[in-house]
């Protein structure tokens, strides 16, 4: 499933075909533009609703713009007494960061071991990893919950983070990547007297930072956006992640539109930043791996 990644930004010019000229081109841009507008409307609605008053949002007449931008709405999710929004944001930060760091460490090492360290039973171990790819993690949430609750990890960071670290898929991706890593670089390191461990940390990892960045971006987004597992584990509101908190707004008795949309905007903002800054790696990583976690 590995797909070699072309540099999409600097990709070859579109194939020139005898066609179109000015009219075809204009049509192309109009079509793309309309599609782009449709894709942006939901983002616009979040911002619009977040900065309006409730009567304006639910009013008789549809308004594209607020009459007066309600900057004061920004603090409202944090003042809300029913949901501890600040706490849930913090939980999400902790969970997403540790999730990403843990996966990078554990899965990359395992991928390297499987790809590069000769061992008689390596194939058997690899098959054991492959088997887990067949079983969707979302289906195992019932038994996983049973296990985690018997460990007493419900409502804890341990419960939120640790079970998700052993992603057969990420391990597989790292293995595929390391199989393509130039052997000569490592052999030079070995000649210089480094063991596997030294060669890995001083030569292999520093030369693979782009791939690590790509996987990190995808993993972080998945960690931040995860819902089912945090919902299962976060029985107590103090262990809610921001996604669980958002979901709880939807089932609340009273609907406070501007607050809900402000909270949504705040929950998306960190990812938009990650996205804009790391997009290059993200695109490259997806094109390379073809997979979302």
């Amino acid at each position, binding site marked *: 499933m590995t797909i070699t990644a072309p540099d999409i930004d600097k990709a070859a010019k579109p194939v020139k075909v*005898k066609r179109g000229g000015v009219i075809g081109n204009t049509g192309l841009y109009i079509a793309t533009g309309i599609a782009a507008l449709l894709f942006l409307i*939901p983002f616009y609605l979040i911002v619009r609703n977040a900065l309006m008053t409730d009567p304006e949002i639910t009013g008789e007449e549809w308004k594209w713009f607020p009459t007066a931008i309600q900057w004061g709405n920004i603090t409202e999710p944090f003042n809300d007494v029913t949901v501890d929004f600040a706490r849930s944001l913090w939980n999400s930060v902790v969970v997403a960061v540790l999730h990403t760091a843990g996966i990078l460490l554990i899965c990359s090492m395992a991928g390297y071991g499987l790809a590069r360290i000769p061992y008689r039973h390596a194939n058997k171990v690899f098959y054991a*990893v492959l088997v887990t790819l067949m079983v969707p993690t979302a289906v195992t949430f*019932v038994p996983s919950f049973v296990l985690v609750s018997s460990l007493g990890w419900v409502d804890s960071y341990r419960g939120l983070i640790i*079970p998700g670290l052993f992603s057969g898929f990420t*391990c597989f991706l790292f293995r595929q990547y390391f199989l393509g890593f130039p052997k000569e670089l490592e052999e030079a390191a070995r000649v210089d007297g480094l063991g*596997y461990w030294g060669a890995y940390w001083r030569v292999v990892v520093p030369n693979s930072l782009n791939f690590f960045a790509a996987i990190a971006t995808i993993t972080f987004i998945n960690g931040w*956006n995860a819902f089912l597992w945090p919902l299962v584990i976060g029985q107590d509101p103090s262990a809610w992640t921001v996604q669980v908190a958002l979901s709880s707004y939807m*089932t609340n008795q009273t609907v406070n539109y501007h607050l809900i949309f402000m909270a949504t905007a705040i929950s998306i903002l960190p990812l938009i930043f990650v996205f804009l800054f790391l997009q290059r790696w993200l695109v490259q990583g997806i094109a390379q791996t073809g997979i979302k976690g």
Partner: protein
Amino acid sequence: MSTTTTRGVAQPAPAQASKPRPRRGLRASSTFNFWLFTGPFLIGLIIFVFVPIGWSVWLSFFEARFTVTPSEFVGFENYRQVLTDEDFLNSLVTFTVFAAFIVPATWAMSLGLALLVNRLRFMRAFFRSVFFLPTAVSYVAASLIWKMSLFNGVRFGLANTVIGWFGVDNIAWLASPDPPWYWLVIVTVRLWLQSGFFMILFLAALQNIPRELYEAASIDGAKPGWQTFRHITLPQLRATSTAVILLLLIAAYQAFDEFYNLLTKATWGQPPLVELYKMALGENQNYGAGSAGAVVLTVLICVVTLLQGKIMGFGRGEESK
């Protein structure tokens, strides 16, 4: 682009006999290192993946309510219960219908977007980013926008406002299964969220198609547009298409977030995972039946995946290149 540079660095003659000289204790040292590197992962994999699966199979043969310590061996009773549970069976139907909609729709849409973006001469990065941006949004946040602002059942939702301009009455999008308007809501959320991601895959694949093919086709008199698309682009995208369809199918099977959030109070349109969630963690906390359901679902997914692999010749397309 380090991957290209790292790959570029080392392409010398195939290193013959560059295996390290056999040394005493080398085998022992690589065994040690193998476990040093893979050990932490494997231990976790056993504890958090294999044990839960095994436990699930074991629990599925026991009566276990409100407790994870099973009390009574009941054989296949849980399976019988799950497989005759109307809600669970309906959820499998829901999944099938959902997959039948969302898989082709996302395939077509992401391919369409990729074709559009690939033809652009300027502002390509901008448009690509716009279509890709929803990948950053969670299903929960998107469900919230869809439910409370786009497809709200009353007039102030955008959809009802727009149809109101044409004199059409408000539609209660999510509130009833008949007509199944909720389906439109469910499908569009996912289309918006996942199309950009798969567009990137198609873009990458499109740019791997050798230009000579198009030149040759144009010499042979193929009309650009539909003919070239049909006879060159589409066959060249075969491997990517297969992978995309497989991924879409797996993703559809795992559908939970948007159904849970959009159809919170509904009794219709519930996919398998929501039913499992209700069964195991709902009012009855029936872990035995929940585990049996998980086993059934896992087996089903494996079968579908394998079948699809067989039918579509998964992986073959790439190898035959």
